[in-house]
């Protein structure tokens, strides 16, 4: 269909880029989710006033373009602190905090969705705070939060396209490298789009499915 100079080696090169996208996303989402849960729980426990500094800190990650966050973190780590981190490390650190900031909101929403009366009931059965969290809040909050969390994971995967600024060659950057060499922008971009779609569409569908299923009961 297309007359193209694209070789199988190039496809492997693209697949490697896609692999990097997945690696960056997986690491960041994993760390970011753990942090997000911790931050979210802390925010709920401390209440609006005492959690204000944390809220402000997390808010920064949602109010500044990711591109700038990456550039700044890179400059700060290397130029100011003189720490020699690889680009992948910096990318994952920034994306993890970025994920955590959004995840904390989701977690907070999930916990708030568990009625206080239900939690009181658990506590009055003699459950500790931890048991209440583990057996009552976690399962109930997960139902509320999981669809949004899947949305977040997808968002982070797409946003990971920006880590090229710290010299990480992910999917979109790999595509640009091939465009430089082969000069077939439209064709290559389409392939790149298909790659993204293939990674994210099933997850998106799964999120939609969960939302539908859980909204029914």
């Amino acid at each position, binding site marked *: 269909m297309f007359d193209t100079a694209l070789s199988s080696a190039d496809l492997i090169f693209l697949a490697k880029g896609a692999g990097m996208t997945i690696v960056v996303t997986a690491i960041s989402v994993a760390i970011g989710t753990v942090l997000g849960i911790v931050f979210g729980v802390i925010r709920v426990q401390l209440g609006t006033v005492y959690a204000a500094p944390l809220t402000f800190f997390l808010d920064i990650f949602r109010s500044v373009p990711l591109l700038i966050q990456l550039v700044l973190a890179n400059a700060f780590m290397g130029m100011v*602190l003189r720490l020699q981190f690889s680009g992948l490390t910096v990318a994952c650190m920034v994306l993890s905090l970025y994920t955590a900031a959004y995840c904390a909101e989701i977690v907070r929403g999930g916990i708030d969705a568990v009625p206080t009366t239900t939690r009181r009931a658990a506590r009055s059965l003699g459950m500790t705070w931890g048991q209440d969290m583990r057996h009552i809040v976690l399962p109930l909050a997960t139902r509320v939060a999981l669809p949004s969390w899947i949305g977040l994971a997808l968002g982070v995967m797409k946003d990971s396209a920006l880590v090229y600024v710290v010299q990480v060659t992910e999917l979109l950057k790999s595509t640009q490298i091939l465009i430089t060499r082969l000069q077939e922008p439209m064709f290559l*971009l389409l392939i790149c*789009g298909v790659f993204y779609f293939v990674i994210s569409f099933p997850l998106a569908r799964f999120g939609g499915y969960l939302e539908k299923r859980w909204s029914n009961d």
Partner: protein
Amino acid sequence: MFGYTFQWNQALARLPKMLDGAVVTMEVAVLSMLIGILCAILLTLLRLSGSRSLRAVATGWVEVARNTPALFQIYMAHFGIASFGIHLSPFVSLLIGITFNNAGYLAENFRGALKAIPDTQIRAGRSLGMSQTQAFRYIIVPQMLRISFLPMTNQMVWAVLMTSLGVTVGLNSDLYGVTQDLNALTFRTFELFAIAAVIFYIITKIITLSARLIAARLFRY
């Protein structure tokens, strides 16, 4: 402690230029939101329409907007579209890219909002003699607006943040573009981008705060 000497005055001297950039950033964001809302309404209607192909087009738009990176969409809006011989300025390309993204996300929100409004509302309107359009315009849309207001505010913030991707299509008059140019001239990376970050932060705060004020005025029910 630091192995780096900050030179803030070097960077601060460029603040007026950066503020000019912030104005361009706001222009793109506001325009992309306004057009994006119109497109989203259209997409929502198309997705409800009887025609299979119209529904497919609208659904395709929404899915691509939501499942590919914004950077990809903006790159497409410049270099992709140009493959068909259509030449757009960087400003317009960025605007189209962000608008495309906004419309996709908002259309999905609108659909959810629409589902949340009971059908009986339309019925009530129709039985007062309103036409379908009138019932939609006076009864459904205002209620949708309230449900979608918070998501729209978030989308507006994202639109502002997305303008930073304009550099990939040759825009250098927006806040990020200006900052990058200044960085190429002076190499004061940390200071310049820190200032840009603060400006972005202030812009997004202004947006969320004014949205809260508007919501308080608009939705008193």
